[in-house]
């Protein structure tokens, strides 16, 4: 079978019309699920996930354990450098043109996610539009830790993916943040009536690129392309990657438990959004990825990376940018939603989900 009839029933059922096609898919779905479930469950046992849950439990039990801030900062830097280096080294011997369509898809998804939030979460009772936009921006933006978590699991599952696919990060991250901030300012100046002073877009882009997360990634890419970092890469960045990742997962888990209390204080719609949207965003991006796969031969693994990037919500670069860009939005709401629910869902559900789907597709 081709992915042709796979794609719809996963990512774009709306495309379905004729009833025979539908029956066939019914049938197909059964076999699909029976293939998928065991793979999905296997994914759930990955150490990455274990460490995340471990962190949640530790914090929930009120342990004194704390990983110092400087260690957290170093690990984030290390992981994104490593991802960047891997990408940069690979780009050296690959055709940069290939990245065009996936990057376009990333930009698109980043922007669309914000509008989805605006017109779903933003319509809920007691949710202010700026709060909804800030939340959409954060969920459209990308989490370095989630990105770091999916790559080794793709490797373990032996699913090939374009090494540069991690470089899609900023292409979704920045447009999402920019859109959220711009739309919010327009909305607010409309509301306050007085003629809107134009929002400067460039400063927002600049701030996102200058954020430690994006800088680390791009620095890695640049060094990977321009220098010969193999000795350092093989002796340091590559072997230590999984270890530092596991520690970051513990931190993320502890943080999720901590932020829960904060989230409780705000409307539960944020929690609901935080649970559903990563999966939704993932499927949206995965669908686009499969379409590009059909068109250009972009790998299915690459589509998984794109999906997980979409499913992830920013934990490092996003919050400060949004806090500054949409000051009237309540950070407890959007950071709480992202850290307490969004990131765990992206790591614990979306990564196994899309890897599982990819495995089935590659198997068939």
């Amino acid at each position: 079978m081709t992915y042709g009839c796979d794609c719809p029933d996963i990512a774009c059922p709306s495309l379905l019309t004729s009833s025979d096609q539908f029956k066939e898919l019914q049938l197909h779905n059964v076999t699909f699920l029976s293939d998928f479930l065991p793979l999905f469950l296997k994914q759930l046992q990955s150490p990455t996930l274990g460490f995340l849950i471990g962190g949640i439990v530790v914090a929930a039990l009120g342990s004194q354990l704390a990983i110092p801030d400087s260690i957290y900062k170093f690990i984030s830097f290390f992981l994104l450098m490593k991802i960047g280096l891997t990408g940069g080294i690979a780009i050296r011997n690959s055709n940069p043109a290939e990245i065009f369509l996936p990057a376009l898809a990333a930009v698109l998804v980043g922007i669309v996610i914000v509008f989805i939030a605006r017109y779903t979460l933003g319509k809920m009772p007691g949710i202010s539009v700026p709060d909804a936009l800030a939340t959409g921006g954060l969920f459209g933006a990308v989490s370095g830790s989630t990105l770091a978590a999916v790559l080794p699991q793709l490797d373990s599952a032996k699913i090939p993916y374009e090494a540069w696919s991690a470089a899609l990060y900023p292409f979704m991250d920045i447009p999402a943040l920019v859109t959220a901030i711009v739309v919010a300012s327009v909305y607010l100046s409309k509301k306050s009536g007085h003629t809107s002073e134009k929002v400067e877009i460039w400063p927002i882009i600049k701030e996102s690129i200058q954020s430690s997360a994006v800088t680390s990634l791009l620095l890695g890419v640049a060094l990977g392309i321009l220098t010969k970092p193999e000795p350092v890469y093989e002796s340091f960045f590559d072997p230590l990657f999984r270890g530092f990742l596991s520690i970051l997962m513990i931190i993320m888990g502890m943080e999720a438990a901590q932020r829960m209390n904060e989230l409780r204080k705000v409307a539960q719609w944020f929690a609901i959004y935080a649970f559903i949207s990563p999966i939704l965003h993932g499927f949206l991006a995965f669908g686009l990825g499969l379409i590009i796969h059909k068109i250009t031969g972009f790998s299915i693994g690459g589509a998984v990376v794109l999906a997980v990037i979409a499913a992830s919500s920013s934990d490092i670069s996003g919050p400060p940018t949004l806090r500054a860009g949409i000051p009237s939005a309540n950070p407890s709401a959007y950071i709480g939603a992202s850290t307490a629910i969004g990131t765990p869902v992206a790591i614990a559900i979306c990564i196994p989900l899309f890897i599982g789907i990819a495995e089935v597709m590659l198997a068939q």
Partner: protein
Amino acid sequence: MSQQVWKLVIVAEEILSKKLIKLIKAAGATGYTVNAAGGEGSRNVRSTGEPSVSHTLANVKIEVLTGTRELADTITREIEAKYYADFSIITYIYPVEALRDHKF
């Protein structure tokens, strides 16, 4: 050798620190001193995405010695106009005696 000056203290979300410092210098203060700080208040917004489990000092405390009360008031007024509405921040002031013959 000693002179009576005003000490203005600002406690705010760390995220504002660069902007506050710019504002303070622009207003004409001769300097400032910053400390990392933590705390809780009426709103107590934790505005960084950084893990609070590790990053506990999410506030910054800025102290500004000003030669005149006017300067201190100007700074406060600007801060109030710009940040009181949306950010977690408090300011207070008291007179101190600067012992060094230092321009404030």
